[in-house]
């Protein structure tokens, strides 16, 4: 503790669990938006991820409310935010936004897998057959006409999903940005910054999940897909980091009464995690490395590492950004005359170990979901995505414009 801190602020109230919440929610929103690049905007380079991105979004969505629930003083009353909501509170929207998003995501996944459910319910035996039969919800028509309808509904759902994802995470930013009492949080840019960094972390997460899943399944990584992710990651990283920098520059340039306190916070009290990890490691290094992977004559393995490694850095950087916002904002006393300390603990008081468990849990959900809803491309799907060789460029088989159209 340095300077003067109001006595009730000595202990940091929102700790690692609340750091995890915007992080995991961000991964959901980001993964979903990546899926929409294919489903809505038709970026076929991302077809290998069309299912994986949605299933990953669902897995992380299952995990998103857990740290919140574990943080509540009265977890048994958690549902009260939906039963007796107080609508002037941003937080009261959480249950509804979350549920709406869950419904959209489940519906989209159901329409995407419906044909497979029908096929699996006849191909497989015993429990599996009955299970998938149940998942069809009785809709077993897989005529071309029915599948076309599925496809159209899915597209509409994906379209609804984009604003839903933006709202889900923009709202998380609003939770912090609307707190006028906190000089480091209070900013109208906060929702946009959170949304953009969510997309960044979602793309990076998919890079890692895709790479690891290919490794486990001993399948080659599709370089054109990785390059597409690389492009998106780089562009959104620039947007996100620019806004974050503009915000701080503006605060510093205006130099209002709270600036000395904020400047002390970001240069000293969270100096290492803000400048060192969030900005240098999480933004600057990926910003330099990512475009190198797009050099055309680079070997495949270089492309892989120059995309995967920066993605890992981005994931760490965004997690640190959440820490710098959530915990950093509470280090600065509302007295504006001092800073409190944040002590990491291992187990008790939202310690590192339980936080890690909550962070890894969605990955566990993903592994289970991937068993139930295999998100991998089947050979016949791959055919549809293969680029037409005559217009493909260079040596990597990276396509530029033409593809075999889908049926």
């Amino acid at each position: 503790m340095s300077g003067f801190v109001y006595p009730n602020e000595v202990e940091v109230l929102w700790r690692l669990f609340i750091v995890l919440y915007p992080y995991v929610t961000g991964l959901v929103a980001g993964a979903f938006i990546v899926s929409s690049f294919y489903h809505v905007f038709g970026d076929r380079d991302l077809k290998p991820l069309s299912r994986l991105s949605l299933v990953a979004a669902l897995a992380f969505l299952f995990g998103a409310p857990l740290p919140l629930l574990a943080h509540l003083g009265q977890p048994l009353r958690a549902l009260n935010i939906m039963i007796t909501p107080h609508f002037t509170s941003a937080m009261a929207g959480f249950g509804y936004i979350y549920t709406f998003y869950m419904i959209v995501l489940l519906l989209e996944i159901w329409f995407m897998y419906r044909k497979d459910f029908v096929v699996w319910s006849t191909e497989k035996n015993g429990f599996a057959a009955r299970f998938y039969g149940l998942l069809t919800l009785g809709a077993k028509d897989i005529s071309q006409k029915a599948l076309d309808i599925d496809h159209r509904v899915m597209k509409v759902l994906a379209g609804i999903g984009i604003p839903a994802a933006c709202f889900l995470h923009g709202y998380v930013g609003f939770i912090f940005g609307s707190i006028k009492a906190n000089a480091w949080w209070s900013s109208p840019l906060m929702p946009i910054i959170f949304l953009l960094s969510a997309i960044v972390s979602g793309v990076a997460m998919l890079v890692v999940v895709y790479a690891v899943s290919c490794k486990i399944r001993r399948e080659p990584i599709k370089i054109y897909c990785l390059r597409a992710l690389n492009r998106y990651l780089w562009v959104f990283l620039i947007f996100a980091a620019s806004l974050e920098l503009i915000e701080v520059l503006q605060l510093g340039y205006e130099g209002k009464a709270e600036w000395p306190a904020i400047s002390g916070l970001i240069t000293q009290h969270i100096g290492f995690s803000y400048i060192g990890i969030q900005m240098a490691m999480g933004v600057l290094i990926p910003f330099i490395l990512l475009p190198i992977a797009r050099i055309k004559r680079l070997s495949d393995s270089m492309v892989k590492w120059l995309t995967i490694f920066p993605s890992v850095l981005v994931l760490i950087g965004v997690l640190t950004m959440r820490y710098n916002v959530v915990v950093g904002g509470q280090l600065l006393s509302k007295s504006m005359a001092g800073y409190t300390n944040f002590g990491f603990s291992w187990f008790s008081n939202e310690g590192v170990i339980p936080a890690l468990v909550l962070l890894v849990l969605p990955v566990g959900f993903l592994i289970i979901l991937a068993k139930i809803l295999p998100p991998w491309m089947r050979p016949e799907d791959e055919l549809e995505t293969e680029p037409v060789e005559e217009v493909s460029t260079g040596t990597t088989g990276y396509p530029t414009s033409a593809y075999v159209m889908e049926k």
Partner: protein
Amino acid sequence: MAKVFSRRDFVVTAGTLLAVGSVLPIGSLILPPEVSAEPVEPANSWPDKWNGKEWGFVVDTPKCIGCARCVKACKEENGVPMDKPVFRTWVERYMEDTNGQVEIESPNGGLDISSVEGSYTKEFFVPKLCNQCKKPACVQVCPVGATYRTGDGVVLVDRQRCIGCGYCVQACPYGARFIHPVLHVADKCTWCYHRLVKGMLPVCVEVCPTGVRKIGNIKDSASTVSKLIKQEPVRVLKPEMGTQPDVFYISLDEVVE
């Protein structure tokens, strides 16, 4: 013989269902179980009690000697753990040296204030408590409406509704709120509302040996607090927050936030 669902069976089944249903409504799993059955007399209803009344607090800052009796009495009166760093009211000490550097402290909420060595050009104490704002940020952000402002201007927390999310603690610009370490719900100064409604003074007002703390009806222009607010140089804390506090500090140094 096939069993017939007789009228008797119907009565028994329906009765059982009714009994179980009334004992175990789903809501009881979520909603607070204790609902006061005490009838409120029409003449003595809350709106009647509140009518024409808004509590206001005046702190006669220069009179404070930093004894922190208020801090101790408050913790005892309101069941705030004595050994935890949480306070419904606390006392801050300001010391300005010859270079204009201001040192601020509130060791253990003021309970551990001790005499200091060194020469200061200016030294004073400031008692802090909930401002019972007219536009309370804490009420605005509560996701379940567990915190609310009474008709006579005191912000309270419903301990049976609070989910302990801590959003109100973050939203309060004055650091007046905390999560109760034992009850795990939000807690704050209530100006001893349980005493006010019985016609008693808040305990901090009562124990203050120098009469720093004054409370009264600011809607009544004849009350002591109304007169002080009108006659003395008063200001509220952080007016720029737009919360419109109802605690008025007499002759408060500008350094105090």
